[in-house]
């Protein structure tokens, strides 16, 4: 595929960038050859995105040089980058939802555009790469996977010769991911280059020609993909050996913890986003609910945790009818909740660690005399113990929570929910966007809770997570629940099929 003696299309030398005294990139050398797929692997905060945003002109490096086709270049803005044939698809898409696909693609390009001609060109271009999109569709109506295609087609339309994809499969189903990888291959065959930023080992191994591993702002190695394996890469990435995959054992015949009967819930726009859902979670059991984002999982989770009132049906916790109960009562009844959006829902960003660690328990007598006067010292001691026990990394207890990394915020939320000795844990996308080290940690914590008899309801769009943790698996599709099935009786492909078609294969 790649002629190894070819001169690189892109070369970055000694790139250094500091943010407030912390080196996000420390003398990084990095190169990409024409027609190469290069994976940029590293944990969150390793400096992958910073390096690519320097390349894309969003940051100016403190030191270092960039060469494109052997010539030194200065990239001061994304416009400069595009002129050099470098384009980037960000994790959060830069599209205007009310514009058509076509309008989004020509947005910001100089000159007049005949939209009909452009649409024709877009159609041809997208078909030739196997990325069919309807140029006339309203962008906001498209599913996430389609929106990503629009971003990619836009880059191709602008004539990108090097495309940077930032965590491209984070939002995709297995089928969509596979088709994205096919596209990446076809782009490389044309002699163009692709950089995939990722923290998933399998993805790096599956798609790339070479892998560069970053750790704490430094490049620790570049390996030809065929000469390396998951074990070596994870060691390079984390700096130590990870323990092997976590296994699950079955435990039948315990009493019921959560029972949901014929539950229907209205979504944001008043339509039923969750229709006639029934299931049960027993104590000490993990029920995994898989599904493509936006199929009603969030709404269902909100209804169970008291953030949204159900339209119909019944929820019982430990045989008590708790339908329509508010969060405070549910917390008292033994519910713990790790919400989907950890920064928007799970904590108050402006609060410090001490304050966030007692959210939901701030009226308990251990933290407030007669439920009113805060016991500041008790709060602080509790925070000190918790931060140590759960290895939450922060500059200090008085740090505002919003400056913590996603992994540390998630640890904080888990620590808080766990310390409460709950009976039921509802965890929604608990590891989304976390790096391997943190994911391992979150998984162990959840399994540990389960061993102590806590019932766990896990919502996740990451199928490998659902499979490695769950005793039983259900699928949400268009607001309806399929299953649950015992996890021994289904496989990833079967569940993936249900996620996209709504029927068993």
């Amino acid at each position: 595929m790649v002629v190894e003696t070819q001169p690189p299309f892109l070369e970055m030398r000694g790139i250094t960038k500091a943010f407030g005294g912390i080196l996000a990139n420390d003398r990084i050398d990095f190169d990409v050859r024409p027609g190469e797929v290069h994976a940029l692997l590293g944990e969150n905060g390793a400096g992958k995105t910073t390096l690519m945003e320097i390349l894309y002109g969003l940051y100016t490096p403190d030191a270092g040089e960039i060469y494109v086709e052997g010539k030194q270049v200065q990239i001061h803005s994304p416009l400069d980058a595009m002129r050099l044939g470098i384009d980037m698809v960000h994790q959060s898409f830069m599209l205007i939802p009310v514009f058509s696909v076509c309008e989004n693609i020509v947005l910001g390009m100089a000159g007049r555009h005949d939209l009909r001609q452009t649409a024709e060109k877009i159609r041809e271009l997208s078909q030739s790469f196997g990325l069919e999109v309807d140029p006339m569709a309203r962008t906001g109506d498209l599913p996430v996977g389609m929106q990503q295609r629009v971003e990619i087609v836009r880059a191709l339309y602008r004539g990108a010769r090097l495309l940077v994809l930032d965590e491209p499969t984070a939002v995709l189903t297995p089928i969509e991911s596979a088709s994205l990888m096919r596209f990446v291959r076809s782009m490389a065959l044309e002699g163009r280059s692709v950089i995939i930023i990722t923290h998933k080992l399998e993805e790096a191994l599956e798609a790339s020609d070479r892998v560069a591993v970053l750790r704490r702002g430094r490049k620790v190695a570049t390996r030809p993909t065929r000469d390396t394996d998951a074990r070596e890469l994870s060691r390079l990435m984390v700096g130590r050996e990870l323990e092997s995959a976590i296994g699950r054992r079955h435990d039948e015949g315990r009493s019921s913890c959560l029972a949901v009967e014929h539950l229907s819930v209205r979504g944001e726009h008043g339509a039923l986003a969750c229709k006639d859902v029934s299931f049960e979670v027993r104590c000490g059991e993990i029920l995994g609910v898989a599904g493509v984002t936006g199929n009603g999982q969030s709404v269902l989770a909100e209804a169970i945790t008291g953030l949204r009132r159900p339209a119909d049906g019944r929820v019982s916790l430990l045989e008590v009818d708790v339908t329509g109960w508010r969060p405070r009562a549910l917390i008292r009844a033994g519910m713990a909740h790790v919400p989907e959006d950890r920064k928007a829902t799970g904590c108050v960003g402006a609060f410090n660690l001490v304050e966030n660690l007692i959210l939901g328990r701030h009226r308990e007598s251990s933290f407030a005399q007669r439920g009113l006067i805060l016991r500041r010292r008790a709060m602080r001691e509790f925070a000190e113990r918790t931060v140590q026990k759960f290895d939450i990394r922060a500059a200090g207890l008085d740090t505002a929570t919003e400056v913590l990394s996603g992994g540390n915020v998630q640890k904080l939320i888990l620590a808080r929910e766990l310390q409460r000795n709950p009976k039921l844990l509802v965890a929604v996308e608990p590891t989304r966007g976390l790096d391997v080290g943190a994911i391992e940690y979150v998984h162990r914590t959840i399994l540990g809770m389960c061993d102590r008899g806590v019932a766990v309801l896990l919502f996740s769009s990451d199928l490998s997570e659902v499979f490695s943790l769950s005793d039983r698996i259900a699928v949400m599709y268009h607001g309806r629940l399929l299953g649950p099935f015992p996890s021994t009786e289904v496989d990833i492909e079967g569940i993936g099929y249900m996620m996209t078609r709504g029927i068993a294969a």
Partner: protein
Amino acid sequence: MTTIRLHPLGAYPVRVRRQRDRVPSRSRRVAIFASSVILALLIGALLMAIMRVNVLTAYKALISGAFGNSDNLVATLLKTAPLLLAGLGVLVAFRAGIYNIGNQGQFLAGALCSTWVGLHIGNVSGAFGVPLMIVSGLAGGALWALVPALLRAVWGINEIITTLMFNYVAVYSIDYLVTGPMQGGPLGVPETDFLPPGVQFPIIAPGTQLHAGFLLAIIAMVLIYALIFHTSIGYEIRAVGHNPRAAQYGGVSLRRTIVGVMLLSGAFSGLAGMGEIAGVHHQLLDGVDGGFEYTPIVVALLGALNPFGVGIAALGFAALSVGADNMQTVVGLPSSFISIIQALIVLFILAGEYLGRLTIERRVPTPQQSETEDAETHTAREVKP
């Protein structure tokens, strides 16, 4: 003296960047505040010079008018009390992200309610009279905030609009009452009868007019501080203000918090109004609010929504307006001149808040990099056996 080598910023490529999430540090805030006051006074000086007024004499008159002798000081403190109380009311609401700008209406409602109570059941001794007045002031202000609070909590109707409209209702209702049903004293004068002595606030500094209402304001400041930072209620208020969704997730009832905070906010503005009745005027009259209008909001914001900060801001604004009267007598500058300076302070602080988020980046190799490098080679050496 050592020679200072100037490091010309212009010698390097410079880039100014706005960090959106960056909150200015405490020392930076103090610096912003101080330089805003100085800049405003400098521009004031410039304007005076244009108007051919002696700048030094004018500012001297301003300061001595506010603090120069005990009478002036008392006048300043008397003006501080209502500003502080109403400012605390605003603070409580804004801390919860509830924009109650109806402090004027709630102030008047507190004044009205306490006047009515004082006139009708006020023939009591001071030991009952003072608490009676405090309760009626609190109740009046809270009642005036009740309707906007319910509208917001139950139907989500924007409290900014409703509280603003309630201001007008209060202003014109008082107008009507003091010229009509509640009118007392000389015919045609828009004021009520005087309150019986039992419900007038006692003087706390003999020989002056400083009344117990000032003490009340100081106590309120400490109480609000304790409430916001040392109770679970304050915790909930701040949580709702920063992130209502997370607060709800943490078991806080948004409705209850909104209603509670609005009532509390109104109650403190009402307390301010009551203080003016029981401590200063001893009757309800047109313009009892002393032309404050939105000043308590400015005071609350300048005090960075911190009770003690609000205290300082209230004192500063009171001093400026009291001193301005003296400035008028001494140099003949209209006392409304001070509004220019007050407005300039606000503008400069707003600009400072923006500038405080900017950082200047210089693209020169920082010594820090070589330092970390050294440190690392050191540790590497030490690790080797």
